């Protein structure tokens, strides 16, 4: 079962939230970030090449122009492979754990899996980000030493940065699954 909704992020860009419901104990959320636009790409390339041409008129060295081309190409490849995140996925499996995957524009995927035994709770926190106050969803991890303490806060959807309405959707579904998991895992 799959449905898609449209939200916006904190800067106003369009986000698409895809929710896949596999079973009552397994849920997947996929948040797609705004794509790289032709306008920004053209703007950056033109700036770099104009600067290189300006240097060339000063120095009369053609190496500057070829260096500018290389820098633009390598910079674009590096940006697509290491910086630009295409979509972020959150997979919650009851009694197994929570998995976060970030897929980059070049296809690279980086995954983190947190076992359910380490998860204390999933909450929405407030944070001050530059001049704004934003909300973000995060996982609270248990402290192994202290039973009710929190050892670490793992923020989710850091590149997409959705607004509160999107976060509430994800939060409700997560809490359903966590409540179900807590109900079934209490020791007899």
């Amino acid at each position, binding site marked *: 079962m799959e449905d898609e909704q449209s939200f916006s992020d904190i800067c106003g860009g369009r986000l698409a939230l895809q929710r896949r419901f*596999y079973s009552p104990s397994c849920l997947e959320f996929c948040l797609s970030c705004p794509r790289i636009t032709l306008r920004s790409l053209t703007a950056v390339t033109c700036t770099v090449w104009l600067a290189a041409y300006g240097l060339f008129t000063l120095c009369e060295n053609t190496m500057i122009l070829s260096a500018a081309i290389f820098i633009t190409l390598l910079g674009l490849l590096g940006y697509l492979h290491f910086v630009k995140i295409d979509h972020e996925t959150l997979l919650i499996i009851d*009694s197994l754990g929570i998995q976060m995957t970030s897929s980059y524009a070049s296809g690279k995927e980086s995954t983190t899996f947190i076992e359910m035994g380490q998860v204390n709770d999933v909450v929405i926190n407030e944070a001050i980000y530059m001049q704004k106050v934003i909300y973000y969803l995060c996982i609270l991890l248990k402290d192994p030493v202290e039973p009710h303490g929190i050892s670490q806060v793992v923020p989710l959807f850091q590149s997409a940065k959705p607004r509160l309405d999107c976060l509430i959707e994800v939060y409700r579904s997560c809490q359903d699954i966590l409540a179900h998991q807590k109900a079934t895992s209490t020791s*007899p």
Partner: protein
Amino acid sequence: MGLVSRGAAEAGRGAASAVDRPGPPDAVPNPTPTPPAEGADPGSSRPGMVLKAFFPTCCASADSGLLVGRWVPEQSSAVVLAVVHFPFIPIQVKELLAQVQQASQVGVTVLGTWCHRRQEPEESLGHFLEGLGAIFSHRPWFQLCRERGSKSWSCKATHWQGPASPAASGEDQVMLIFYDQRKVLLSQLHPPTALPDRQAGDTTASAGGLAAVFDTVARSEALFQSDRFDEGPVRLSHWQSEGMEASILVELAKWAAGPVCLFLACLLSLISAASACRVFKLWPLSFIWSKLSTCEQLRHRLEQLTLIFSTRKAESPAQLMRKANMLVSVLLDVALGLMLLSWLHRKDLIGQLADALIPVADRVAEELQHLLQWLMGAPAGLKMNRALDQVLGRFFLYHIHLWISYIHLMSPFIERILWHVGLSACLGLTVALSILSDIIALLTFHIYCFYVYGARLYCLKIHGLSSLWRLFRGKKWNVLRQRVDSCSYDLDQLFIGTLLFTILVFLLPTTALYYLVFTLLRLLVVAVQGLIHLLVDLINSLPLYSLGLRLCRPYRLAAGVKFRVLEHETGRPLRLLMQINPLPYSRVVHTYRLPTCGCHPKHSWGSLCRKLFFGELIYPWRQRGNKQD
């Protein structure tokens, strides 16, 4: 609700899957999540709980049989290790499992049945399955089933109390997690952080469910020793059942490693005994050995080689990795050293270097003389105290003159020395670099001497100035209380003190300038030596074997796991694929870094500046508590 569910359970058991003959299957009834009856054995299931079954991908196409593995009650998950095929004799299966349990300390039992059917099952097989469940009593009892040629799976986990009360049985939902057995067997989990205050008792609980799965598979090697070509009583299906994995080269290397290690260990112990003999502990020799970084590097390498070729087997995987990293590092070092040697000899660079060395030393001395002449004049427009200037300048010039004569005395022997030093590159590039660093230290010895003279003079002056400044203000340093106290001086004390203070203040610029110039020169030499040492440290400590393993066999070093949801149809159980998430390169380097000599500067920038200001001598690196020239 209860009657209907019980009825569905009965029907489900009746039309169960085929076992060894392909019978025509019906559509297997959807496993309805029925709550278990009261009186179900405690501790194994709770209402609506989902059980996890870890199933190896190699067994997904195996013929029908029994599932053999381990049940982990804390995570309510079953780790399937192998499939026992029909026909079998239950007694023999139990014997085999007992053997494996004894050999590996893993609680291997029969978990359930597996059927891979083509057509509809026969009626009698349903009862046969029930009978199996009675022979191998395990709660919960899994029944996995797959239609041949399609992707539809079904699985049930039942708890029944036995034939006496067949009605009191419950079913749980099962989640199938596929894993690659070979990769999970070979991989090693690296937990994110190891907490310091963890007791030994709760390692398994806090280690997490997935670490238990990895542990189970890794320790059950005894189960995977027989393949399908063996004529044993029981026929198993697992990752090695198509044939045991082995390599001739590895076996030969293992066989040859014993005597070779023994021989090399004896040789190395001879060398270390020779180097530890009393002759080398006499004062002048031991002083020189402690100063040279070459000796340090050679000692480090000797230690590493002793560890690699020791005849004791590595106890833990971390130790094995360390040995492998050291071996690869030594081999790379020697390879780079031989390349350097061939390059030097090909271009006859040693002769050219020897010819160029004396003129370079002369040139450096000449530049220093010019510098001193400049300081003795009016450097940068500053006005120096003439007398002190002349004294210091002449003293340093005489020193340079001595140095030049010494270099000229050594000149006939330089080429021979350099040639022998070049030969030492075959011991490794690090040794050659350490020798280069030592040669630089020896050639700039006069700069070091000038720095020490300048620093001592300046330090003396600063201490005198601070003490006399306190006198000027009427205070005194209390050595007992380690603080400044007021003190009443006599008039003549004050007079002499103020006079001396004035003299020192007016002589300060001259001394400070000499100190500044020679400190800068010394820092330059230290920076060059530091760069060389950094390169040597890099070669020493980089874990190349681990990096290569991460590049070529990423599943061996696992940071964790990742899951992928496979095709899902409603009514069928949820199927996940568990893959290994490899360790990032930065963590590989951080975890498997080899220990180095530890020749890193121990000062922070603040303390360095403080020492420079007060004229204290800087020793940029300390090796094992000794000072470096």
